[in-house]
């Protein structure tokens, strides 16, 4: 018998970032990651949860900060989320697109 997972469609902006980060679910993250060619592992989820925690704390994120998280170094972060790791991981974590402040 086939199991059909009913994933609700969540509201995103034109770039695919979640409009409300509280809407986020693990399944949504898995689907978005798959759409970007990434199969999420435990390590991915550790990073994602850390990003969400920082969002809760109101901390502005940079790649360097993720590299100081104790979870991954910058090189590993690039391996987990190839291309633009902070933009991609933020999208999968359901938090807003990182903004540069200068």
């Amino acid at each position, binding site marked *: 018998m086939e199991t059909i997972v009913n994933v609700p469609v969540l509201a995103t902006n034109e770039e695919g970032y979640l409009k409300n980060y509280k809407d986020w679910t693990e399944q949504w993250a898995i689907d978005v990651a798959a759409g970007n060619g990434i199969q999420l592992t435990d390590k991915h989820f550790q990073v994602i949860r850390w990003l969400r925690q920082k969002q809760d704390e109101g901390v*502005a994120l940079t790649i360097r900060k993720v590299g100081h998280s104790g979870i991954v170094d910058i090189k590993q972060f690039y391996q987990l989320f190839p291309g633009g790791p902070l933009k991609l991981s933020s999208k999968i974590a359901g938090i807003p697109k990182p903004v540069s402040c200068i």
Partner: protein
Amino acid sequence: MAINQENMKDLLILGGGTAGTMMANKLRKALHAEDWVITVVDKDPLHYYQPGFLFIPFGIYQPEDVIRRKIEFMGEGIDLLIRDVSEIKPEENKVLLKDGGELPYDILIIATGSQVVPEETEGLKDALWYKDIFDFYTYEGSTELAKKLKTWNGGKLVINLSESIIKCPVAPLEFCFLADAYFSERGIRDKVEISYVTPLSGAFTKPKATRMLSSLLGEKNIKVIPDFYVYKVDNDRKVLVSYDEREVPFDLLVTIPVNKGSDVIGNSGMGDEDGLNFVPTDKFTLQSKKAQNIFVLGDATNVPTSKAGSVAHFEAEILTENILSFIKGLPLEARFDGHSNCFIETGFGKAVLIDFNYNTEPLKGTFPFPVVGPLGLLKESRANHWGKLAFRWVYWHLLLTGKKIPVSTKMSMAGKETGEEVAV
């Protein structure tokens, strides 16, 4: 140092650069000499006009144009102490000096600025340092680069930002524009390939300014390589290598190394969690998040705006008000809006002026500038170039000494063309 009377209070300022000097002069005028001792501590007796470093490599400024003695800018009743600070002890309200002494304070202002740290990137300060790799954010780097450029006959010139949080974020772009003009004037522009390699996704961060600057870069045949986060420099092969293993070859590398706050901040455990030693600071009141009697301004803060002299100037106005409120036990009501204002030198005697804050990106329009008249915003003009050069006089004679400059502390929308894309 003045002998402290028992009933006198200590206001201690760490750093006698642009921000620290302005604060000392403003507060000295505002606080009674019989109530408050104001002391500025800095390890270097010399004051550098840092915006001038950009012009030294191209021979536009000579080294002597940018150096004065710090003491010249300290008003009467300010003690300047040339000593090296090792640590801040917020719980004990004192600062430790490297030679073993200590300085107590009632109020501490941190104005320790930022510094370039090439050691943060593997291979940057190595065999090719000051041979084929140069910075221009230091006096030494800019003067060494001036010598190099005089005799360099072309090849791949790469300008690379190691990090996205840097002092004067437009200076690397200005360097590209001035290099284009410099090699054109030397008649070898066709032998120089200029690339701007940045960890950002475009030439700048704010959309409208990025569009304007990208089109200027295109016109001047300067190639932008975005999203390139440098991991190391291979000195043997002369290539930059990114974290995702892309490579950019160079013949001459002009680097903007990782910028960090002072080591004192790191030693005191007072830095932000990215390890860059910038001090967590309330972005509106400029009070430190660590202690109520510690305030921070200039490059030393982690507030989300540019690290630049204009920002330090606007912050100094706000912080003066807030410190006076703090002394009286009143709430800190003056709010810094992130106001930043800078001239972007674009070469061939022209410049662009941009004006923005936390919420409003740089827009087109005109900027009401006293005496010179309105200056064009977000577009090239000769008047802006003269504004930029005139600023050095304003800096030495008005800004540092805390005199009022007729430019509004809060960003004004007057003269700006808002369009529909303005962030609110």
